[in-house]
């Protein structure tokens, strides 16, 4: 038994660095880049969905419907393995970023849309009353307030995304989870490796949630402090 423990210990130590490396080299950049682009898509989609332009709105709705309704892995598959048949052969990382961004965009647009709708009508009216155009009102008055509202739900999405990036293994990106499986294949210790990789994910999400809190505080410092609610 002690032999076994020692073996596990060794595997743990030996695999830690490669796992961390894969995390830092793929999981984290894939998450950050996809989330950033996804936010932009979410944002534009949300704006289109509340705009008065009918056809565009239809397209946005369709996009959200498809990308929320189908599994992310299928989306990645089609982007990476399907698009070459129409002459578009994307590198794995790029394909991953596109797939994850579109997924974040679809879920995120619903969040941002709800947030924009939650800003009181009075804010629009006040903006219009000082002569702003709709665009100016959105940019200067509505969106900054909506962003604050959407920080918590968006960070839920973000934390999910960190882990969802493991799907990139199917499109030849050796991210952290795939790395763990590689090591498992050598030592036949899936439970150990899974726990180890879970630990690293946990650290990642904890650090990133920490930024979420900082962001919330930043926004809060820009307006009133609410009293305790209970």
């Amino acid at each position: 038994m002690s032999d076994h423990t020692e073996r596990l210990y060794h595997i743990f130590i030996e695999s830690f660095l490669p796992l961390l490396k894969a995390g830092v080299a793929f999981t984290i950049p894939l998450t950050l880049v996809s989330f950033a682009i996804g936010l932009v898509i979410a944002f534009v989609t949300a704006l289109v969905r509340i705009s008065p332009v009918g056809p565009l709105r239809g397209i946005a709705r369709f996009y959200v419907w498809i990308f929320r309704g189908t599994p992310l892995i299928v989306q990645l598959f089609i982007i990476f393995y399907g698009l070459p048949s129409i002459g578009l052969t994307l590198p794995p990382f790029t394909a991953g970023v596109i797939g994850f961004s579109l997924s974040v965009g679809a879920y995120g647009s619903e969040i941002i849309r709800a947030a924009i709708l939650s800003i009181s009508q009075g804010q629009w009216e006040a903006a219009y009353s000082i002569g702003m155009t709709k665009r100016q009102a959105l940019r200067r008055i509505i969106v900054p307030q909506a962003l604050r509202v959407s920080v918590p739900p968006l960070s839920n999405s973000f934390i999910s995304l960190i882990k969802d990036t493991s799907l990139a293994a199917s499109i030849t990106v050796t991210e952290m989870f795939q790395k763990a499986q590689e090591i498992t294949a050598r030592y036949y210790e899936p439970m150990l490796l899974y726990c180890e990789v879970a630990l690293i994910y946990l650290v990642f999400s904890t650090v990133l949630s920490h930024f979420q809190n900082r962001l919330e505080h930043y926004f809060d410092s820009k307006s009133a402090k609410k009293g305790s609610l209970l």
Partner: protein
Amino acid sequence: GNNSSNNADKNNSKKQTLLQQIKDRGTIKIGTEGTYAPFTYHDKNGKLTGFDVDIAKEVAKRLGVKADFVETKWDGMIAGLDAKRFDAVFNEVAATPERKEKYDFSSPYIVSKAALIVRKDNNTIKNFSDLKGKKSGQSMTSNLSKIAKENGAQIVSVDGFNQAIDLLKSGRIDATVNDSLSFLDLKKQQPNIPLKVVAEENSGSASSAMMRKGNKDLVKAVNKALTDMKKDGTYLKISKKYFNEDVSK
């Protein structure tokens, strides 16, 4: 850098055969899982290695090109071949009739025995015929499940070899019919693992390299490389390196 040559690939696809394209670009792109020891896996230093990998490398060498491995999950491996992201797949693929409808296969480069694996303390299952009514963990992606089924086992569907072992260890299944060579490797890694092989069957499956249909010259070239390396002893060397025996039959 597995995509740097895609443009050349596209431009020439009309005029040239795949074999010529491969030779022109100087690399053959090979899809493999990289998580299946000892056939395709990573060594201590993280380098891709294994029996299938070495065979593929040797084949490439004999084609006069470099082997460029792309690793992905099993589903991606197939889709990648379809999408022309790879030229061939070396990953213990058995050439079943259904698959032959869609792909061309090389001549077999390995024949593995089917091993009946049970827990050490199990004294009721001694032979394949004892599987009747017992739970056997089988990967649906392999044809070993057929053997279990034919012997009347109740099939529990698993992802792969590792999962079958986990299920067996935790007592969730009674047995698994699996690759004897994989089990050997497992034993090497974990000498104390409380599992044993109670029977082997010679009618194990043969695995081949898998290629898209319509590339006869590539298949021919691969077959020639395989025949040549068997003749000149290179194959045996690789076979001994991983299994201490000749696995060609």
